[in-house]
């Protein structure tokens, strides 16, 4: 099924495949960010149970890239199970809600530790994202605090809004550019070197994902 059908559907060539992961408290807007980035829409979704992922082909830094973006559940109850999905990620996006302070403090108390514990890529790039900047009047975390956190944990930083589209594209672009700058991450991600489930996989998912962008 795989070889014949993949040639049929003209599976697009790509230089690298990157696995990106979205983490953060429940309700900060991870699923909304993913939906905005991959389908350019915004709608209310059920709280994530388990995990969800979408694939998007992009051209960044002169390279053809296939991004597999994993959206995890922020619910505390699922946390140990969510750890399954950390493995192999080249980029991890830590999302908080700028209008809910505890979602920000939980990043250092909980999520940063989870990364240390479960991420299998020592050099994986981390990115801090403050979402829902459209609700400026309700802001509870200043931009400066975000910058400080990012400096302390050595990660990239951006504020964005899944609702108004502000900075969503940039957020993924910056993360990917940084990964492209990190040779140890490219080694695993290069399409030629490693057997990868995405390469020989049924192409339906790919087709669906790329068609909706």
């Amino acid at each position, binding site marked *: 099924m795989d070889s014949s059908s993949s040639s049929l559907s003209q599976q697009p060539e790509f230089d690298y495949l990157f696995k990106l992961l979205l983490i953060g*408290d*429940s*309700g900060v807007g991870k699923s909304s960010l993913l939906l905005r980035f991959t389908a350019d829409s915004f709608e*209310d*979704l*059920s*709280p994530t*149970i*388990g*995990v*969800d*992922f*979408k694939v998007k082909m992009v051209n960044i830094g002169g390279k053809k890239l296939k991004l597999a973006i994993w959206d995890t*559940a922020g*619910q505390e*109850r*699922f946390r*140990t*199970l969510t*750890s*399954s*999905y950390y*493995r*192999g990620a080249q980029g991890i996006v830590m999302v908080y809600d700028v209008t*809910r302070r505890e979602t920000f403090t939980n990043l250092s108390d909980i999520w940063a530790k989870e990364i240390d*514990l*479960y991420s299998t890529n*020592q050099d994986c790039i981390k990115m801090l994202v403050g979402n829902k900047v459209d609700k400026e009047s309700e802001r509870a975390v200043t931009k400066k605090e975000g910058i400080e956190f990012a400096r302390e944990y050595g990660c990239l930083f951006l504020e964005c809004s899944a609702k108004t589209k502000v900075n969503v594209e940039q957020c993924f672009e910056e993360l990917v550019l940084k990964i492209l700058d990190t040779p140890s991450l490219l080694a695993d991600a290069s399409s030629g070197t490693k057997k990868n*489930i*995405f390469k020989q*996989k049924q192409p*339906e*998912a790919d087709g*669906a*994902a790329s068609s909706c962008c």
Partner: protein
Amino acid sequence: MFDFCPQLERFDDFTIASSWERFISEIEAICRQWLADGPKILMQKGAESVPSFENLYMIKRELKRGKRVYSMEYHFMKSAKGKNTYWEDDTHTMQLSFGVDEFLMIAPLSASGVVLDDPESTKLLSSVAIALSNCGSNWPAFVPVHDPSRKAYIGIQNLGTVFTRRFEADRIGSQVPIRLMHLEGLHELFLSKFVLSSTDFPARVKVHFSMKLTYRTPEYDYDNETLDSEATESLVENEVVNHPKKQWDDDCPWAEWYSAEDPVKGFELTAIWGEKTFEETLEMAEVENASSFDADSWFLYPVVSQYMVDDSIGKFVGFASQLHLLVNAYESSAEAQFLEDFVADTSGQDNSKSTTTVPPPSVIDRVMKDLFKAGNSNFMESENKYSRAMRGAPADSLFGQFCLHALWFGNCNIRAIAVLWIDFVREIRWCWEESERLPRMRISSSIDLSSCLIHQKLQMLAICIERKKSLNREKSVGHKDETSNAAAANKTRKGSAGVVPKMMLLNTFQEMHAPYTQDAPLMTEDMHEERLHAAEAFGNAIGLSGQLERDILSSDMSAFKAANPDAVFEDFIRWHSPGDWVSEDNADGNSGWPPKGKLSQRMSEHGNVWRKIWNDAPPLPVSEQKSLLDPVREGEKVLHYLETLRPQQLLEQMVCTAFKSSADILNKTTYGAFKLMKTKMDQLYATMASTLKSLQGKSDISDLAGDLKRLCQVFEHIEKLLILAASIHRKLIDAPRLAQAIFADYFNYYLPKMGTTLESICYEKEFTTKQKVGMHERDAVSNLFPPPTANQSWRKVLSMGNLLNGHEPTQREIIFSVQERVSNGHYSSPTPLYADNEQIQTHRMYICGTSNDLWVALSVTSWD
């Protein structure tokens, strides 16, 4: 040559005149060139460094006189020596013996030691002297005489036009006269060289004296049980002597697995008395009785075993050597699909071959008994930032111990490992069937994903065994629902863990109860991976991934319903996901009833998955629910994994665990926290982490084996150094600064060896560095010389004096000298700096000896 035909030699005399003349001019030409060049240019021209001296260089030329070939060597120093520094280690014997700096040495070239007869040596020396004076050089020149074992020399030095210095040295190899064993006698010997008549003898002559004593610690007789029991007794100081074999490293962490040869064979202590002036022979006797503690300085030198620098295979037996064997086994692990194949595969092969020998069943039994003996390990896991990358099991866990035993099981070949593993798994199966707790496994509620998979599986199995045991217990007690007892008042409420403060149900004026919930199921790494792959495979098809999460959610909802029979979906959300409840109450929190608010937009969407699950969940307390983790099923899965494990997978994990555990064991050693050692240990972990990491990447097995063998090499260096550090530390426990300094000296000497290449570097250079002992450290150092027992001192005839705790020096070196005032007119031409304030050293004697070996070198300056 003249040994055989002395006549011929005499006959040759007829032609000598001219041959000697030619010879002299040849020497002269060479010396002029060397003089003109000076040290700097000579070094550029290829003068070689004299081994083991930092400052000394030598250039060599060969000369012919008739058929005789001579070699002439000019020794010179890179930088000038200060005065009175002859006791320094960087001093050549010739320099020390004769009080010279640079010198010429001329000797016939012959393979069989140097033999010169008197006339030849005298002629040779005068030729050199003539040549040197012709070119106005002040270099002292020496010629070896007699047979080499006597180390006898004659020498001469022009000191300007007026003075000449003559040198002579000889040795008494046995039967040293008693008189010359003592300082008094030696002093008289010196005086006799310039006091002409015996009547002058008592005349007071100011003699300068300095002395260097070398002591050697007695042998450490650790395992010499019967013969030297008394000696041992004195060493272990009233400890239990009956212990038959007391090894030096008995209480070191590695001793559980092997005993290392003590790399420190002993110490040499050098005590130096700086220059003093004596006028009477009697004073010498006092010096001989003086305590070594009166010496001006002490230096300590460790006598380090040759095995430290010997890299040949099999020379060092420790973790490193066994790890090397394990890596070999890993290399051959890909040869078969199943471990059983290695065990069975003996057909046609030479069974006695060391690569296939398996220790007898009795040994296997012993190992199994040790592995599975009851009693928990204390799990002193030293968390290390690299442990994640190394992916091993803790050293004292069941699998960690298995790996360590395997290292020392026979010669750790693949077949022996296979035999051991099969028995090991059989024992584990037995524990499982009998619901026996697994030994050496700490029961925890989580699985350590940073450990190797086998260890994770065993953690899982240990938990399953516990659960299975409690299931069995419940069954035997009967189907009595304990949790419902608590809620006897309310017949319908089940499985409540207590009231949630300030939370009332929406539809009834009742307190909200938090239910007991099930633990989230435990997962080993491969289960996580499986879930990941499942998620990848199902892709975007919502509802197919995350089945486990749904089960948990459903279980929570059931439990909540059971604990709150009148609750609605909104109540559950308020408890479980408060963020999805938008409260419309007053800000003061303590609002009235009913609480006002609504579900968040996303929770209230049509087709919300949560609500669907809520609708389907039956009210059931945890005790009546199906367990999220089926211990019987999961336990069987673990055993299936262990029983069908591929050899290569086993060996990979064994390699990781064995490296990590061995390093962890060594790392527990106390070595006084020497900084250099600590850094090396950290480096070892870093190197292991980066090498072992690629083992999980499953690249080419032969590439990896190469890397692993290099890692073994690095491991061996560090293991040896660590053992050395431990040995030095415990011997000099009361002088920590000194211990650390001595270790650092050796470390720096050893460092060039530490390349990561497989070829061993042969060490020609010897370790010679001595450390100065501080005043406050002398007590600690003298403790290295325990007073000999009656038995020992009886055996040895002490005859020299200068005892240290009853030990005689192994060598005593003395320099005597006298100086004479010289009038300015007398002393006109340029001479080297032998004169000090118009004083010139007229006689100098260097004596080096023990009670049965005496070597004396004399320098006499005269004006003729």
